[in-house]
């Protein structure tokens, strides 16, 4: 067992406990960024001037009418920017644009004494536009060859030879939708200037260091003049990794120019129409199988809808390519990626970060072709799993370690979910119900953990022990509900050997831990936990020295357990508080900064090869659905999940992540429906589902009626803090089982062996049309034929 993964006696990690802020959450006393406004005097409110056209050059921007509105203090425009007029890391995201690039693009911001005054001021600003043609969909972008950014190419084996060896070859296309984050707390920031002219910015951001960096370059001042703090977020899901920076820069600029605190908070409509989302993709593919259904070759092109600016589209696309294999060994693969440039919001990080999109392509292919191969989808998937001990590598050249876990979680789900019996029950039910069909589907995941870009795989922490024995920890990660802070407190208490109540955690601030990475890529606990452990170990070593002397033993024989220091083999005890006080009087430093870098990673983005991931996270889910043949409406009857989180740091929190991720994934794949106006009318490019009333998230009615989540046991991960694994993103992709179950239930309305194409999201309407196509094929007596809009060719 590695030093990193080994747990001491009576560890606080591994204990199930509620979220560290749970009591504040339930009493309404937990503070979020915008709650601070009511505790701050003389705040100005910022309101965006959105232009409701998808594309056009600004020919005039008149702010005088706004200044005539009572209560309007100032209108911010590009002319006010002292530094660089850019809100992104790619220098393609002007904070105040000359060209409107998407419907709802903000071109100026109004500061008012009240929100109402700012709103009225924004409405009074006059913008003239020379309209330009707009590209709204990924399909239009492909047709117009409108792309931006990198064009990655991933290749392994001999693809042509693989197809030559194939007994069955299929081709197809698949366009699937993105997803709105819909964190319950919309984007918000509050900026203040201090007596030295420096800025303090409260921001709802997953990446305080980058918020600091962008504000710094917009204002043209060094980073040490900017402090960014994030108390907590009301959800992030990747939507606050890159997107908060420009908004925070607006508040900072307003504060700098007026000397007053400036607050902005997007309302829901603004947030939906201005901020980026999960990338929708287009995929075209050709796949070959041998006679037994083993994949021989895959040739695919993935096109991500990047929106108007690059944002994080390049790494998102890279991760999509890196996950097209999912749990399957593809000996010969050629996959090209490109990023469509469209006149829509700038698509960005979202839980899974391209991984779900890449995996959806292969899962969709397998779901579609299984009937044509004459195989049960479960059988087809199993035949293609990575096999342990055979040195199989991913298409980008990383050895697949722990391949045994792919089938371990799979087999356990079969057992937990009693799949064999239930499949028989479902067959009987379907035979007896002409208008209602049920189906059960099993899918698995393999998700790579670490940032693709190696440099981001570092974490920092600052741990302070006060002389009364209380401990304050700071780290670079942010809390968005995922329970990171809870886990970090457990890690600190474990390393120091003290009870959890001795540890308090301070809000994330850039002046405590510098140059942090985004809390993203599921890596928050791995990176920051490693750093906290490192800091606590330094402190512990110093305290062991003190304790050894006090207890009359050797420092290396000291153990601190549950707040009491002892020397091995001795009954003498020294309580933590006494130990700390003694150390203080002995002038021992009681603070330490910790650091962690993930070892063993390398990545060549040009060659698209390397070992970008520390390890893989695995899981499997079996979902049973019931479809109403009259309407296409469905319900999720039962879900069984077995997921690998290594040895859990905090089981209740991990199970919460698995369940929440699954339901969010089910929302993406079935319910959440981003609709853009693609007509040539006056509202072309407008997001039509721009409110909670039209963009529907899963509610209680989408919760599985029976929901069983099991964490894999004895799953120690050698390469991560206290043997744990990341959990944030992977469970989202377990929801493929919902989509595949819907496909199979639709197929059950026709004869056995019917292949079904299913749109994504698989809304009731989409499921209804899938059912209708099955019925039509059945009526035509075309047994085993492909149905849907895109025909599959069987070579």
């Amino acid at each position, binding site marked *: 067992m590695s030093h990193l993964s080994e747990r001491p006696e009576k560890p606080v990690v591994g204990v199930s406990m509620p979220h560290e802020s749970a009591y504040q*959450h*339930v*009493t309404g006393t937990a503070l979020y960024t915008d709650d601070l406004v009511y505790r701050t005097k003389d705040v100005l409110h910022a309101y965006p001037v959105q232009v409701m056209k998808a594309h056009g050059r600004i020919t005039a921007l008149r702010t005088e009418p706004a200044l005539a509105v009572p209560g309007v203090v100032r209108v911010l425009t590009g002319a006010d920017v002292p530094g660089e007029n850019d809100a992104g890391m790619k220098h393609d995201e002007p904070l105040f644009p000359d060209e409107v690039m998407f419907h709802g693009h903000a071109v100026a911001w109004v500061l008012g004494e009240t929100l109402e005054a700012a709103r009225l001021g924004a409405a009074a600003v006059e913008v003239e536009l020379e309209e330009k043609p707009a590209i709204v969909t990924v399909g239009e972008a492909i047709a117009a060859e409108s792309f931006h950014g990198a064009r990655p190419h991933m290749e392994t084996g001999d693809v042509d030879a693989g197809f030559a060896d194939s007994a069955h070859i299929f081709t197809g296309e698949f366009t699937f939708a993105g997803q709105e984050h819909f964190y319950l707390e*919309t984007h918000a920031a509050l900026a203040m200037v201090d007596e030295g002219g420096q800025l303090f910015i409260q921001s709802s951001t997953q990446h305080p260091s980058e918020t600091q960096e962008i504000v710094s370059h917009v204002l043209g001042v060094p980073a040490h003049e900017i402090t960014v703090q994030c108390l907590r977020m*009301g959800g992030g899901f990747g939507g606050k990794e890159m997107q908060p920076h420009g908004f925070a820069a607006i508040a900072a600029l307003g504060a700098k120019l007026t000397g007053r605190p400036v607050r902005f908070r997007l309302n829901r409509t603004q947030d939906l129409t201005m901020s980026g989302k999960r990338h929708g993709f287009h995929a075209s593919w050709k796949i070959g199988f041998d006679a037994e259904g083993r994949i021989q070759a895959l040739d695919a092109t993935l096109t991500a809808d990047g929106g108007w600016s690059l944002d994080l589209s390049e790494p998102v696309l890279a991760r999509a390519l890196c996950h097209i294999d999912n749990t399957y060994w593809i000996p010969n693969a050629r996959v090209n990626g490109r990023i469509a440039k469209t006149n829509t919001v700038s698509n960005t990080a979202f839980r899974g970060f391209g991984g779900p999109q890449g995996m959806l392509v292969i899962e969709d292919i397998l779901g579609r072709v299984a009937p044509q191969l004459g195989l049960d989808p479960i059988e087809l998937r199993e035949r293609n799993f990575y096999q342990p001990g055979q040195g199989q590598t991913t298409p980008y050249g990383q050895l697949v370690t722990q391949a045994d876990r792919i089938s371990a979680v799979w087999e356990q789900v079969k057992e937990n979910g009693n799949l064999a019996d239930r499949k028989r029950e479902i067959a009987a039910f379907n035979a007896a119900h002409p208008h209602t069909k049920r189906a059960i589907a099993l899918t698995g995941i393999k998700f790579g953990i670490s940032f693709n870009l190696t440099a981001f795989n570092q974490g920092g922490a600052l741990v302070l022990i006060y002389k009364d024995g209380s401990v304050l920890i700071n780290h670079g990660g942010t809390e968005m509900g995922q329970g990171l802070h809870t886990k970090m407190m457990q890690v600190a208490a474990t390393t120091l050997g003290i009870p959890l109540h001795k540890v308090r955690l301070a809000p994330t601030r850039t002046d405590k831990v510098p140059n942090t990475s985004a809390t993203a890529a599921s890596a928050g606990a791995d990176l920051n936990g490693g750093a906290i452990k490192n800091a606590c170990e330094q402190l512990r070593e110093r305290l062991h020295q003190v304790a050894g002397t006090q207890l009359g033993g050797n420092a290396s024989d000291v153990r601190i357990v549950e707040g009491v220091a002892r020397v091995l083999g001795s009954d003498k005890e020294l309580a933590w508080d006494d130990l700390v006080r003694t150390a203080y009087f002995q002038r021992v430093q009681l603070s330490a900064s910790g650091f962690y870098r993930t070892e063993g990673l390398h990545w060549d983005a040009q060659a698209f090869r390397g070992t970008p991931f520390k390890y893989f996270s695995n899981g499997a889910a079996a979902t049973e659905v019931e479809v109403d043949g009259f*309407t296409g409406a469905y319900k999720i009857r039962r879900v069984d999940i077995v997921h690998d989180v290594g040895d859990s740091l905090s089981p209740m929190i991990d199970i919460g992540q698995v369940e929440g991720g699954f339901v969010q994934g089910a929302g993406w794949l079935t319910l959440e*429906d981003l609709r853009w106006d693609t007509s040539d009318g006056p509202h072309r490019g407008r997001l039509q589902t721009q409110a909670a009333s039209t963009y529907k998230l899963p509610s209680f009615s989408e*919760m599985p*009626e029976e929901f069983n989540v099991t964490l894999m046991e004895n799953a120690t991960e050698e390469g991560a803090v206290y043997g744990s694994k990341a959990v944030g993103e992977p469970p989202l992709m377990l929801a493929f089982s919902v989509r595949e179950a819907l496909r199979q239930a639709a197929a059950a309305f026709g004869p056995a062996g019917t292949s079904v194409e299913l749109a994504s999201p698989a809304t009731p309407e989409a499921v209804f049309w899938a059912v209708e196509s099955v019925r039509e094929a059945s009526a035509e007596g075309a047994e085993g034929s492909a149905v849907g809009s895109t025909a599959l060719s069987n070579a």
Partner: protein
Amino acid sequence: MVSARITVNGKETPIAPDAPHTTVLDFLRERGLTGTKEGCAEGECGACSVLVARPGVNKPTDWVAVNACLVPAAALDGQEVVTAEGLATPGADGTPATLHPVQEEMAVRGGSQCGYCTPGFICSMASEYYRPDRCSHDASEAGEADAEHGPNGFDLHSLSGNLCRCTGYRPIRDAAYAVGEPAEDDPLAQRREQAAPEPVATSYTQGDSTFLRPATLEEAVQILRDRPEAVLVAGSTDYGVEVNIRSRRDTCVVAIDRLPELRELRVESEYLEIGAAVTLTEIERRLDGTVPLLAELFPQFASRLIRNSATLGGNLGTGSPIGDSPPVLLALDASLVLASADGERVVPLADYFTGYRQSVRRPDELIRAVRIPTPLSQVTAFHKIAKRRFDDISSVAVAFAVDIEGGIVRKARIGLGGIAATPIRSLATEAALEGKPWTQETVDAAARVLRGEGTPMSDHRASSLYRSAMLGTSLKKLYAQTTEAVSS
């Protein structure tokens, strides 16, 4: 000027100087009660849920959860509000507060992750916790626990208006199903035994904007006659969206939700009369299933949070073609009682709508009541087609009320929503059914007629093809439901 005030968590709080359009949400937040959150500002997410003391169905007072983002603060003049902050019992100086039982269950079971939606869930859950007729014994033994009801009688529909993006809901359900009965000395439980605050006649003006709450129907219709710019508001579940999302500002808003003349529910020999300002929750609980078609409608009508404020008068008054009550009321052959300073008139609902959000109601008239003739048809059904089962707007809604005697359809009434500029009755389909045997053949023929009704459009909710298809399949589904076991 009489100052308007709300009792918040036991403390009287003036509404001034807020503007009359200020919502309860902003009113609370501006006074430091920031536990109440804005998630959507249109009554869809429930992050702003708070408890209001209202006249009860089974006890003098019910603790009713409402969307604070939709209700003008002035509408709660003289009323009592409790927020998530107010549910915890403050500790003595220097000691932590004692959590309310629903707070305790939510906290220890992992019911909160990011915590932003949590205070709203707490209030919705507390409202159900205090519902007097919530079965407090073991409902699973009584056979009353099902997919949507817990062993403690907890109705999951009470949380249908609350969205959580983090948890996937399972731990929230577990918390809801774990709460017991309120303790004897629970102050909010005790408060239910006393009368709810009376409505307060309100005249609240800031600048050129006024919020009025007349005390009687007579005063209300007089205002309508005198002030043509006056806007009627009952539950504010539609008006609040206009204010928040479309920045609607009016100079004169008239609240009619507490007018006694609009709050009656009477059973007459030939009809049932439901006051236009009785909330949907009150109708649901007071009728208790005696009008099966309404009983089928309510769980599908928006969310509990909305139904706690929304009224039939409001749903008909806005004249929306996608309201869920008009198809049902059309199938029930309902009429409306319109009142003005000149007196009352009764208009069949089938003659009420004249165009998109247009009706025969004159600007000086208000809807006083809805009349449903009795006896009711035996076979009724409400089919709502939407993306989401809880709290969604229908793309198509179809209501059926059919009498079948001796295998022959004697009478058929079919109300449709979502397929034309107004809710309509499908007279052609009714004709295709009446006098015919209730058989698959009759149904298939009538379904073809029904499928051709209206002028459905394609939008973000559904395509026109799907809407038309759903009209046809709805009748076939009804037939299947009457002839075989089909899950609804």
